[in-house]
């Protein structure tokens, strides 16, 4: 086991980092807020971590500062944009992410230009990484429960209805937007710290594709989907080595397949399978209104097709 760990250390750590990115996408998509801003804040967090490391910050305070700043900036950014309908918000945040790449490219000594920054001395252990992921997952899972969970679901499915149910849509959306931004920044910072460097390659558009694939493929309905997506997407090239640099082609195909056939992703697939299994094991009692198949009750759980 330790042999596996040693030889796959990079991948294991990478999985943790992208899991945070995946959750930043999942959390907004589940609530119907179509924001790619976390990919932009990823860039901000990544460079911030590098610069803070150079300035001598220790790890935990740096991460906390980055998360808080990310949340604050995300909240500010949401003020003008949170009312925008899905498609428009998507494009604006897409533009935001792309523009930050341009800024990074031209950032001079702050960002190291197209070459980036090296020799980041801050380090994080794998255990710490997993702890961070666990904490994030815990926080996010709380947003799926009870009244808040229901409210966010209503917003994503039927906004007008949400309003007549007393839900303050704009405030909730702003909150989710800020949270997603903070997580994006955190993921970027973690990436810098685990790879000890930061560069503009792989940011922007590619990052959006990666994040989307993980969140959508795994299942946007819950944080577990994001984790599943992160694991599958990271380990996929390991298992299917021949894919090589054409990885993004596979991601693209996966995205299309998921979005056409099973919008709830892997989670939705699991739901359907468990429902099927239970239906086979305990067939429904005949007739009457009360005779709704037992299996059907399970589907009423957290998932569904939130996209």
């Amino acid at each position, binding site marked *: 086991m330790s042999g596996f760990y040693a030889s796959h250390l990079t991948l294991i750590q990478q999985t943790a980092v992208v899991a945070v990115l995946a959750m930043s996408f999942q959390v907004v998509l589940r609530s119907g807020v179509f924001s790619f801003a976390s990919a932009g804040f990823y860039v901000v967090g990544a460079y911030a971590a590098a610069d803070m490391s150079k300035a001598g910050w220790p790890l935990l305070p740096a991460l906390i500062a980055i998360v808080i700043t990310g949340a604050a900036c995300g909240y500010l950014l949401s003020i*003008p944009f949170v009312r925008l*309908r899905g498609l428009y918000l*998507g494009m604006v945040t897409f533009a935001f992410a792309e523009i930050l790449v341009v800024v990074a490219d*031209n950032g001079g000594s702050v960002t190291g230009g197209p070459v980036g920054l090296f020799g980041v001395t801050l380090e994080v252990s794998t255990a710490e990484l997993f702890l961070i992921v666990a904490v994030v997952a815990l926080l996010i899972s709380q947003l799926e429960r009870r009244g808040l969970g229901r409210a966010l679901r209503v917003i994503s499915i039927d906004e007008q209805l949400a309003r007549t149910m007393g839900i303050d849509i704009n405030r909730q959306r702003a909150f989710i937007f800020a949270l997603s931004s903070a997580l994006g920044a955190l993921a970027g910072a973690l990436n810098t710290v685990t790879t000890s460097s930061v560069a503009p390659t792989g940011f922007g558009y590619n990052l959006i*594709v990666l994040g989307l694939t993980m969140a959508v493929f795994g299942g946007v309905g819950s944080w577990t989907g994001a984790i599943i997506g992160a694991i599958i997407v990271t380990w996929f090239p390991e298992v299917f080595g021949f894919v090589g*640099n054409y990885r993004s*082609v596979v991601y693209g*195909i996966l995205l299309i397949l998921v979005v*056409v056939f099973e919008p709830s992703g892997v989670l939705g697939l699991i739901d359907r399978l468990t429902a099927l299994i239970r239906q086979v094991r305990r067939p429904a009692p005949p007739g009457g209104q009360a005779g709704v198949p037992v299996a059907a009750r399970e589907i009423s759980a957290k998932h569904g097709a939130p*996209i």
Partner: protein
Amino acid sequence: MEQLINAIVLGAVYCLFALGLSLTWGTLNVLNLAHGAVFMFSAFTCYLITQRADIHLPIAVVLVVAVVAGALMELCLDVLVFRQIKRRSRTQGEAEMSMLIGSIGASAILVTIAEQLTADTPFTVTAAPVKASVYHLGSGVYVTNVEIVITVVALVLTVGFALWIQRSQMGRAMRAIAYDAPTSGLMGISEGRMSALAMAISGATAGAAGVFLTVYLDSLTADSGSDLLLKAFAVVVLGGVGSIWGTLIGAFILAGGETLVTATTSGIWTSAVSFGLIIAVLLIRPSGLFGKVKGVRA
């Protein structure tokens, strides 16, 4: 003055490209984020033919190849992806989001293939540079025939398209579908056929823009598509979704703005112009200059 000519040429091409985006957005309610990738890949297809397969073609034929390639690509996207999504999704909102994400997936496929096959280096559409004859317009102003052809063709196509959509029967059918698809369906207008037509036209504009821009800028790279997509979005938002004249004017405003910024900041912040425009418009007047469309704001 040269800057002005530059702005005009760019504006014309932006307009043509943005028209395709506006068409699918306005009629099908689909924000096709693969439009940029199709633009790039149409040019890339020409590259494959003229340089990898070593088949030499005159530039006019290259143009046709790109147009057909673009149309086919977006048609496939419609039939294989968008239509399937529309069939299976439960709500309009779900369908829109799914199609958006699907288009991102499609673009990832196209961009990665091009990236790998060109080893991420720039490519051109013809093996030899297009011969350009230069015309002297007086007081030191020069314009090449390439610039003239591009501008004229792009503008002619734009105006032609505008007239077609306003006057022809097909055009009216397209607008009917944009306005109210189910009712139009009841009146015999096939949504499927209209959407296929819209996507094909959109793809054709992307292909044409691909050749024009590659020739004008000397070359493209695999990620040129997302750059242009951003500009197209700025154009459509500025001009107003669904308004052809808005797209025209928006395109020239953007091109003008970019040329200005390039001249004064030596090109670093040029892409920021589109972002700035997008933000400004969505904050101040979300429906754009001539937009007549429904909900931008929730």
